[in-house]
């Protein structure tokens, strides 16, 4: 008779042979136990914002196809739903899920139980209230008027405060670390803890006006990616790829080069969002140069990740985590190369002001960051919930819906956007021609978005199952394809 729940001891006894291994595993389980509640809280609320944000995104997408649909409802108009979508998925989903991943990673990489757990609860509560308050404000039209900084000041303040509590706990854990060596993922995590609050404070100094406010706006907008979202994704990729494959990262020194080149060049990129605009030319040029220089850190990271993966592609068949994370790391390489090229003036002349940019943004935030977060959550949850994912088929559904959905999304908008830009730049055509030309591509985008939403629903459903420890009992990880559980797999 199979036991109904797998206890901590069963987990430890699993396939362990020597006392040393047992104590090592015991220690790891204790560390995982110390983070369970805060991490589940971050993930759960993050996934909530993901589902909500995807619904808002899909609605915004459909508004392009059917502009008069729900046209009489002020709070569902495109101009309000769009910032609701962006802020929900960025400051809700990606930030909270990322924070959860960071808590678990830091604890594991420092080989120490998490410290100041209370601060994490306070952080999660403040953060969620901030996001909820900000989104309600946007529905009612209280928008600060700057992309990425739309939330009213009190909402932004609550999130910033939440971040400080979160950072406090992470730093305390780091100070009590039981390791000599600091792994690459920790560099990115620690750097982002310094960068993100500083970025937010500097952006809110209130000393900017006119076109320099625009410069600040895009320095902030692009840097939110540079100092918070990308470090989350890279920290995850650096950890999970070698972890699942079971061999060390290809090169430590490339990791070092990648990190410092990243720190040096990334935060000079933002002003390429204002190419062709009324800013001093040198300013845009500096940003374009820095954007092209991003080839250096990106190549370093790409070589490191892909050469670690190479030769182990068979494992993608089995491991859900690896499949999501490798998809994410490949997207990172693709989106970074695309970004560097996109910043060039001759390319921007067509692609800027079009749907092309929207495709690029989604390849980054979804294809890269969200896919890595999905992979991380699939890895972390069984370890902290002490329960395996009940339905590997649902994970498979999630993966394919997300992967095909984002691919369709990006290809459609890149093609449609390029055509839109070419027609916009042809003065012999009326402007409306550039609108009409994008319509079929915008339908394809909505289809891609629908697929992603279906994936998210499968993901959210299974997440609820795992936190309630429901569904069939498993004694082996929920691989995509593996032999059936036999008598030998059962705990003695």
């Amino acid at each position, binding site marked *: 008779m199979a036991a109904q729940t797998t206890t901590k001891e069963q987990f430890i006894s699993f396939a362990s042979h020597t006392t040393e291994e047992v104590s090592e595993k015991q220690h790891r389980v204790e560390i995982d136990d110390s983070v369970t509640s805060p991490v589940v809280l971050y993930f759960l609320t993050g996934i909530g914002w993901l589902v909500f944000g995807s619904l808002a995104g899909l609605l915004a997408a459909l508004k392009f196809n059917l*502009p008069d649909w729900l046209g009489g409802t002020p709070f569902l*108009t495109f101009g309000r739903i769009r910032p609701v979508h962006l802020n929900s998925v960025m400051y809700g989903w990606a930030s909270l899920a990322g924070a959860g991943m960071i808590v678990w990673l830091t604890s594991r990489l420092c080989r120490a139980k998490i410290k100041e757990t209370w601060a994490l609860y306070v952080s999660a509560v403040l953060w969620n209230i901030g996001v909820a308050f900000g989104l309600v404000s946007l529905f009612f039209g209280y928008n600060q008027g700057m992309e990425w900084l739309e939330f009213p000041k009190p909402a932004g303040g609550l999130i910033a405060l939440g971040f400080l509590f979160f950072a406090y706990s992470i730093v305390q854990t780091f100070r009590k670390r039981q390791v000599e060596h600091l792994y690459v993922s920790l560099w990115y995590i620690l750097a982002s803890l310094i960068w993100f609050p500083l970025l937010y404070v500097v952006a809110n100094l209130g000393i900017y006006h006119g076109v320099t406010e625009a410069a600040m706006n895009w320095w902030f907008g692009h840097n939110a990616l540079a100092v918070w979202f990308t470090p989350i994704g890279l920290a995850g990729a650096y950890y999970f790829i070698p972890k699942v494959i079971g061999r060390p990262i290809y090169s430590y020194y490339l990791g070092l080069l990648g990190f410092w080149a990243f*720190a040096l060049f990334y935060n000079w990129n933002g002003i390429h969002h204002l190419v062709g605009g009324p800013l001093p030319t040198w300013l845009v040029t500096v940003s374009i140069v820095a954007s092209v220089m991003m080839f250096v850190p990106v190549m370093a990271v790409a070589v490191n990740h892909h050469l670690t993966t190479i030769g182990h592609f068979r494992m993608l068949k089995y491991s859900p985590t690896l499949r999501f994370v490798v998809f994410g790391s490949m997207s990172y390489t693709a989106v970074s190369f695309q970004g560097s090229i996109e910043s060039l003036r001759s390319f921007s002349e067509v692609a800027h002001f079009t749907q092309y940019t929207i495709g690029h943004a989604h390849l980054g935030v979804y294809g890269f960051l969200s896919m890595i977060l999905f992979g991380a959550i699939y890895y972390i949850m069984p370890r902290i919930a002490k329960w395996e994912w009940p339905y590997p088929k649902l994970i498979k559904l999630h993966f394919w819906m997300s992967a095909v959905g984002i691919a369709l999304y990006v290809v459609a908008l890149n093609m449609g956007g390029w055509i839109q830009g070419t027609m916009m730049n042809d003065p012999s055509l009326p402007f409306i021609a550039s*609108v009409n030309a994008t319509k079929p591509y915008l339908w394809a985008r909505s289809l891609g978005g629908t697929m992603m939403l279906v994936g998210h629903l499968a993901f959210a459903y299974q997440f609820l199952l795992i936190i309630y420890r429901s569904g069939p009992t498993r004694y082996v990880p929920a691989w995509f394809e593996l032999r059936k559980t036999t008598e030998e797999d059962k705990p003695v």
Partner: protein
Amino acid sequence: MMFIRSFIFFLGVLATLLLGWAGLVGIPNFMISEVQPPKGLERYTYEQSYGRSIYIREGCLYCHSQQVRPAGFGADQERFWGRPSVPADYVYDKPHLLGTMRTGPDLFNIGARQSSEDWHLLHLYNPRIVSPGSVMPPFPWLFEEKISAAPDDKVIVLPDSITPREKVVVATREGRALTAYLIGMNHTYPVSQVPAHNDTTKKK
């Protein structure tokens, strides 16, 4: 040793971000703060400012830019969207609304291209009345239906097929303010320094 390494790490991380800020925001902010408003640029009236807040509230900035590109970079000049915009054009703008998207056309000089209040109101009520194929959302909540119009009401004349029975559609205060802002978007006055095409490497 560990302490020194942590210190270098901390310093390096701090320095990289602050250098970026200084180069891209701090120094330009200092340089451009001296810019004087051009003679032809007027401050927003109260109504226009109110209209501008409606423009932000309804998220117009997500589809419309407010900046004109110089000759040789895009087709703004050939489309007669106005001379290239300069920093001085924006001295009264808070927050800035430069925009990054042109799902719809640039609005920097929309008031000069289309100065009819009736056209703008009709377009806001439902863009497809005057601009077939447009994907812009309708904004019916900037209007109200009345049995009869008051003397100072602005009535909009809709096509017969969508005119409500025995009622008139009038613009609300918000609708009229937004229109006033749009009509006021006229930056055709001369400025002393119009930037030349800023890409010297590209051959056309």
